């Protein structure tokens, strides 16, 4: 079969991928730089194409709670936002994690804190990987570095969400969301019938039929010992995810003396910087975590046995660098270089940062 190729913005690719995946519902609220997601959905009118529900909510708070409601019915439901809106979604995400519901969330990160800027940033790493909302919970976090990955991670994300009954976050940034690239589009999948939903999600609130007990979706348990038991169950789930779902790309690491660690847009910049450095004879590699939770700690720990140092490149004041330090555990120097507030570093300044690092500065 001919491959279907399309030139798309990252934000549009997300929406098209969701329709083609056979997602059941999208709820969103406009915010730059991701408004194209809901605009593309509205333009496509997926209720006509596949029967998928799309609704502009009154706020991000409402949107994520709509996702809760649809997800609790066993539906493949999603929302998207950018940093200030993602903050508002933390309440809902905590409840979704607590009720063990599957869903997909996209954050096209912009600079903060506060209203910050509409320019790209990677400053929501802590919020995304360490919980974000209240209570002990984790999101599965996927970090795309291309428009193609924006497209592909919708399917991967939904599949992981249903496999583990856990919210999945695609952590993108203003560049990946806004830029246009060629995307290979998959075939249109048919949305599940109600019978298939019930079969896949026997826990869902689809109406209490005579052949089963009532289904209750809640994150509340007033008995402390039972709540503790539940917390431990979640930890077990997260441990399984840590064991089985790590995704990471290692480029030129086999002979590397020093490695960059970077995800998303920063990893693309590092690709260029790495080429420039290699041309000058420096043996530099790149570790690109694709899942930020679970973090590829073991891979980094393995590299720490033989490389001389790790330089993280992030568009933040240094967030992921803490996870690299934990993985390296003091064995090698770990440093951070980044630009913030919506400023994107050039490959040349990253080259200089690495040279300084290698000199021990």
């Amino acid at each position, binding site marked *: 079969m001919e491959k279907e190729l399309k030139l798309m913005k990252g934000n549009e690719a997300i929406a098209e991928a969701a329709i083609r995946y056979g997602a059941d519902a999208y709820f969103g609220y406009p915010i730059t730089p991701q408004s194209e997601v809901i605009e593309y959905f509205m333009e496509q009118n997926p209720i006509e194409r596949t029967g998928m529900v799309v*609704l502009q909510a009154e706020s991000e708070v*409402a949107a994520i*709670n709509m996702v809760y*409601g649809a997800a609790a019915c066993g539906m493949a439901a999603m929302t998207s936002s950018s940093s200030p809106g993602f903050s508002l979604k933390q309440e809902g995400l905590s409840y979704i994690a607590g009720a063990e519901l599957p869903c997909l969330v996209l954050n096209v990160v912009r600079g903060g804190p506060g209203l910050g800027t509409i320019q790209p940033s990677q400053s929501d790493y802590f919020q995304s990987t360490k919980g974000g909302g209240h209570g002990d919970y984790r999101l599965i976090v996927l970090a795309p570095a291309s428009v193609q990955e924006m497209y592909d991670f919708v399917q991967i994300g939904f599949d992981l969400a249903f496999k583990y009954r856990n919210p999945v976050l695609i952590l993108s940034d203003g560049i990946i969301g806004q830029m246009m690239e060629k995307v290979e589009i998959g075939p249109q999948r048919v949305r599940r019938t109600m019978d298939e939903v019930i079969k896949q999600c026997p826990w869902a609130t689809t109406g209490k039929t005579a052949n089963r007990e009532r289904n209750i979706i809640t994150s509340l348990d007033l008995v402390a010992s039972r709540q503790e038991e539940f917390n431990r169950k979640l930890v077990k789930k997260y441990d399984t995810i840590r064991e089985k779902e790590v995704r990471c790309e290692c480029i030129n690491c086999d002979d590397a003396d020093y490695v960059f660690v970077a995800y998303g847009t920063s990893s693309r910049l590092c690709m260029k910087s790495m080429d420039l450095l290699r041309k000058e004879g420096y043996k530099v590699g790149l570790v690109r975590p694709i899942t930020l939770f679970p973090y590829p700690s073991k891979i980094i720990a393995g590299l720490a046995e033989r490389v001389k140092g790790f330089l993280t490149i992030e568009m933040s004041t240094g967030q992921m660098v803490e996870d690299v330090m934990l993985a390296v555990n003091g064995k090698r120097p770990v440093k951070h270089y980044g630009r913030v507030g919506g400023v994107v570093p050039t490959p040349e300044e990253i080259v200089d940062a690495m040279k300084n690092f290698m000199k021990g500065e």
Partner: protein
Amino acid sequence: MAELTINDIIKEENLVYKKTKVMTDNVMHYCPGCGHGTTHRLVAEVIEELGIQDKTIGVTPVGCSVLMYNYLDIDMQEAAHGRAPAIATAIKRVMPDKFVFTYQGDGDLAAIGTAETIHSCNRGENITIIFVNNGIYGMTGGQMAPTTLSGMKAVTCPRGRDVNTMGYPLHITELIAQLPNVRFVTRQSVHTPANVRKAKAAIRRAFENQKDGKGGLSFVEIVSNCNSNWKMTAVDANKWMEENTFKEYPLGDIKIDWEIQEGKISLRNRKLDY
């Protein structure tokens, strides 16, 4: 004549009342005399009578009725504080053939969840909202609610609600009635048998409005009590409610089938009211 025994009385033909099978046997946690329990029962009875137990999804709030899902034998979702209408919106949108309702207190619906309430009503989601207005935050120990009466004491307004700094009792129900996509708005109570019957008829209508295909949102306010936090006996609380709360929140239908009932909504003027 032989003496009548209990077994002579317990007979099918003597049956005047039966617990609906849509209620579970779980012991309710409500304070004796609280209106929540009665209101739960009415919702359950309506679900049974309409034969929609297998098609109804309920959404519980954060408030004293958070555990409503323990008492109704239907599929239910527990919402974050104030978010029930957003959740109900999604449930109805993805499963339009289901009967969907929220059950919310006044803090939940008219304070933290005001946006979700107004906008689900404005969209005319074809759902039923049961709004239990007891003029106070029951669950958290009697703090002021948006519906707390002027001058009424609560633990966060120990000298009484001062309308100049704390605002007037919020008539969210009258606000909602003015939204064109809202179909049915009524205010009832459950503190006497006669009122219970009226409230049940209203709840029934609100659920029936989900099945004739005409759409629109149905909103049933139950003016209720919180004897524990009002610091009154159950009987005194009901009497106090009749004498005070009903003056602020008069009972009756406000809007039926998109028609605002005559004289039910008048502009409130600060000087005239107080």
